[in-house]
């Protein structure tokens, strides 16, 4: 699969503040890359450089082999971009706005109509085409932004927090859309939500303080958290001790932690050896021993914990 986006050692400072400190990445066709990171990490700045809105102090970006700074028009023709907050011309209607974008991108006459129709269908804008954009709800505004980005069916899509502020239904709809387009395009999506990375992205990078600090699939990232993949058990407090001793004998269980105790219920956590999948083993063991439990589920790493893990390890390495 060809590499459609290549960013080499991008750097950007605003006065004394170093926003981006040497970020490189590459995205192939068919890949959806997730940008994760706390606020101010440099996600948006990186995206602005990739799309040619900001000029990097150092480094360069190539879209489909075209250098964004040297051949901006050609590179941007291959790119669809949804900026943060989905800025739009409020006084225009979606139809007028999308027509404008289509014309700027070189479509004329009947082509404009067909391109518009396709984008409108994919984003479900049919009912609001003649309404002024400023009167639309946040969800619809976001959809107009997406429509504008996919109008010309670009090989590369860059979306800055596309589901931010949307309700669960709308989030779902957008993620569906991204998944649909994923096979034919190289897509970069930035987000705060790990769940989104799981749902949509094939790979993710975590950015902190202008640098990439983690790179891998969603699974890879979650594994950084010690309790990821652990089996959590909720059981009546009287039986807790029994459960603990039974599970600790299991060869694939490192140890069992007591997470909390409340209202006669204890939350236990069985930590696996080497991240092995122990759920089935634990369940059958408990059944054999006839130990009834209220709940049994597999814990998944949470994004804030991943972040915390990374930032603490960074601080540790700084002090080392």
């Amino acid at each position, binding site marked *: 699969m060809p590499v459609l986006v290549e960013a080499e050692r991008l750097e950007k400072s*605003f006065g004394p503040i170093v926003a981006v400190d040497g970020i490189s990445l590459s995205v192939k066709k068919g890949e959806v890359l997730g940008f994760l990171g706390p606020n101010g990490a440099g996600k948006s700045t990186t995206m*602005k450089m990739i*799309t*040619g*809105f*900001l*000029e990097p102090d150092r480094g360069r970006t190539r879209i489909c082999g075209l250098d964004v700074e040297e051949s*901006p*028009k*050609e590179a*941007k*023709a291959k*790119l669809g*971009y949804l*900026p943060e*907050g989905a*800025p*739009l*011309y*409020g*006084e*225009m209607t979606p139809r*007028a706005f999308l027509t*404008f*974008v289509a*014309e*700027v*991108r*070189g479509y004329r006459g009947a082509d404009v109509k067909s391109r518009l129709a396709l984008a409108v269908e994919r984003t479900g804008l049919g009912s609001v085409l003649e309404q002024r954009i400023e009167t639309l709800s946040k969800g619809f505004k976001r959809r107009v932004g997406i429509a*504008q980005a996919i109008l010309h069916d670009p090989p590369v899509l860059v979306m800055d927090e596309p589901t931010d502020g949307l309700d669960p239904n709308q989030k779902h709809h957008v993620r569906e859309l991204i998944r649909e387009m994923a096979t034919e395009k190289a897509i970069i999506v930035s987000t705060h939500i790990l769940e989104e990375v799981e749902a949509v992205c094939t790979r993710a990078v975590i950015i902190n303080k202008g640098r990439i600090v983690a790179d891998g699939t969603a699974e890879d990232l979650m594994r950084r958290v010690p309790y990821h993949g652990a089996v959590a058990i909720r059981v009546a407090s009287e039986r807790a001790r029994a459960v603990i001793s039974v599970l600790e004998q299991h060869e694939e269980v490192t140890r069992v932690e007591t997470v909390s105790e409340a209202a006669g219920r204890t939350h236990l956590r069985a930590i696996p050896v080497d991240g092995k999948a122990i759920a089935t083993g634990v369940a059958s063991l408990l059944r054999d021993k006839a130990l009834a439990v209220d709940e049994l589920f597999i814990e998944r790493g949470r994004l804030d914990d991943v972040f915390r893990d990374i930032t603490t390890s960074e601080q540790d390495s700084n002090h080392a």
Partner: protein
Amino acid sequence: MPSSLETAAIIAKREFAAYFATPLASVFLTIFVAATGAFAFYIGGFFDRGQANLHSFFAYHPWLYLLLVPAVAMRLWAEERKSGTIELLMTLPISPWEAILGKFAAAWAFVGLALVLTFPIWITVNLLGDPDNGVILASYLGSFLMAGAFLAIGSFVSALTKNQVIAFILAATICFLFVMSGVELVQNTLRAWTPGVVAQAVSSMSFLTHFEHITRGVVALPSIVFFLSLIAFALFANVIAVDQRKAA
């Protein structure tokens, strides 16, 4: 991909339509026509002078432009910055030149429209007497060119800052200097204190000097060169400003 001029035209079309999306446009046009009319007929003593010409009408154009044109110009870029649409615009396959040219053309056309709306005054004068229509035509052309110069400067300043108030004040100040440099008092002071070349140089760069020549009825090439070269320079500066803000 469309040609540069085509792209600029598409952007100009969008910009021009945007003017009329709010009542702001109608308000501006009304104020312009009313103000020029008021200055011409009442303050300019049109009826007292009893002459069939529009000298009093055109005499106030430089000063009215000083107030009204920066208001039109300042929203060109400052608005896009504030709403964030600049990020959208600058990631479309267009070059800064095309965007700047398109926006300028739309703004100039809008001011041109304002001038056209004052034609009833021209018709009135023809009904009241027998004016020199050649002079009036020349004056309209001169006024249109001068408005273009005001706009180009305003557009450049608008690209420098996000703050529309600062953009307005700065643009008005620069234009003020360009107008005042042609006022007799300033000219005489210069002639008294500096070598003749300086006074002539300043005069050749003044809006007022060139505009006054044109309103006499003679369209001299140096005047056309002046306005067009100033517009070109301001647009070039505009490109630099947009480019630099991109890097900032």
